């Protein structure tokens, strides 16, 4: 049930107010919201009268603005991230930045702002990339202050829902952790098994903690196997080292706007440089689906070969309390056969 009524100029005016920059002229908005493919549209090419939403309004497209806006958004976002994650390496900041400014996220924000109705493009429905590009182009036409507001108001709130361990999944977190702790002066880093239950079952659980100098618990986690638990404990230790804990406070709105973010333009330390040269600081390849950690076939075979051989079947399968003494033909009278424990129990 769409509204076929659409006055482009009114929509632009309203959009300017919605995004918080009504002072910018209409022509600039039109330029930012015009996709390159618009001029290839059949009706625009032939200069059809009253082609929606009107080729006569603007003749430039937003290609250059997209590039400019992308840079500016990234600069401000990284400044914000560096302020909050002061102890995190630059690679993590880059990861978060590229994740929050990817096409999918920006297209979502653009959709909720109503950009999808305003973008002039050939494709219908609008593609994710065009929608995201339009948002980037807007950052291209805004003033620096307004771009900062754009980042703080629309991009940064997504941080509440992301998990930093998934955004920056190191392939070998324990090695990286060891290097970082050694740089801080810790001599011994060892993972220790705190709890375990059901080791030889289908649902094992292991709780592992990583101890520094046999004293301090730097990271703890559970897992389906010892390897998984150690891996997760190392990731938790790294996040704790970088002060990315669940009790962190992120600044939003006015509180964030009042912070002098320009002072955080210098990149944080580089993880590859800080770690030893042999340490693997690459990320996991998340595009391939990983194997499920449960060991069902192994558990079944173990049950059949080892467990069953030793303890046999469970009582309910072994006993038949409501026993039947046999068919009518085989049953003898009760007074003749006194039930004994070894016949009934």
């Amino acid at each position: 049930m769409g509204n076929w009524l659409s006055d482009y100029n009114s929509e632009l005016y309203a959009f300017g107010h919605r995004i918080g920059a009504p002072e910018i002229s209409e022509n600039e908005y039109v330029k930012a919201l015009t996709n390159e493919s618009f001029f290839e549209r059949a009706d625009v090419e032939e200069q059809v009268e009253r082609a929606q939403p009107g080729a006569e309004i603007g003749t430039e497209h937003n290609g250059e603005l997209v590039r400019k806006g992308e840079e500016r958004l990234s600069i401000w976002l990284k400044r914000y991230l560096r302020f909050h994650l002061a102890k995190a390496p630059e690679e993590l900041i880059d990861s978060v930045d590229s994740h929050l400014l990817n096409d999918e996220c920006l297209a979502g924000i653009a959709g909720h702002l109503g950009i999808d109705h305003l973008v002039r493009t050939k494709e219908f429905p609008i593609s994710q990339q065009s929608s995201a590009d339009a948002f980037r182009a807007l950052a291209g036409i805004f003033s620096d202050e307004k771009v900062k507001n754009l980042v703080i108001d629309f991009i940064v709130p997504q941080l509440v829902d992301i998990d930093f361990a998934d955004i920056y999944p190191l392939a070998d977190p324990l090695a990286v952790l060891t290097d970082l702790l050694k740089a801080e002066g810790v001599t011994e880093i060892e993972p220790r098994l705190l709890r375990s239950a059901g080791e030889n079952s289908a649902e094992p659980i292991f709780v592992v903690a990583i101890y520094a100098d046999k004293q301090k618990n730097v990271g703890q986690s559970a897992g389906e196997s010892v390897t998984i638990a150690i891996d997760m404990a190392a990731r938790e230790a790294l996040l704790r080292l970088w002060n990315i804990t669940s009790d962190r406070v992120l600044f939003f709105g006015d509180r964030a706007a009042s912070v002098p973010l320009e002072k955080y333009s210098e990149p944080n330390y580089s993880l590859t440089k800080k770690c030893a040269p042999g340490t693997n600081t690459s990320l996991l390849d998340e595009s391939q689906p990983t194997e499920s950690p449960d060991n069902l076939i192994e558990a079944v075979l173990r049950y059949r070969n080892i467990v069953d051989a030793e303890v046999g079947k469970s009582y309910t399968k072994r006993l038949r309390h409501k026993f039947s003494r046999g068919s009518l033909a085989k049953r003898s009278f009760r007074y003749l056969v006194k039930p004994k424990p070894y016949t009934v129990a």
Partner: protein
Amino acid sequence: MPSVPRVDRLKPIYTAAKALNFGWRFSDFLKIPAYNGISRYTNQLHRITVRFCKQSESSVGVRNFIENQIVEIGRKNPSVVIYAQPVRNSNPSIRAEYGNGRTLQINAKNMTETEVSKDFHLLFSRSGEPVVKLESRQSALCPSVQGQWTPITWLPTAMNTESLPAKQFSEHKSTATSATEYILQNQPK
């Protein structure tokens, strides 16, 4: 005349509506579109269309509303586009389109001007999310402050190092004093 009489039963309508993607849902957790309000609050209403008939009596309230109040509302909310669409021989209605792509329609037939104004302002305050019964009145980003319970939260840490079964974890503890303990505590002279 169909062979099986078509009777509108409530049950199939209910189950069908539950399956609809765009239909109304009965209950859900509180949802906000696009993290609105965390940093900045933007009005999720993008455009409102008032459809009315210039002639019929049912659109009187809507017509009066358009004459008297609509310009003021438009001035106060510059981020919303308001369309007034005259349609012949139709029921007057107000259609609102929101940021999440949903459209709401309110039938304004035989409404007075004040009623139309009330509904108009209601649409300004909504976010486009469907009206649902809340599963919970509480909604928080942080699910737990003290930490969620796990089977190992209250397990004594001394059990880690011992090989089970061990005697010190097996002993029965009781607040009642046994006779032996009583005598040992109150030694006779």
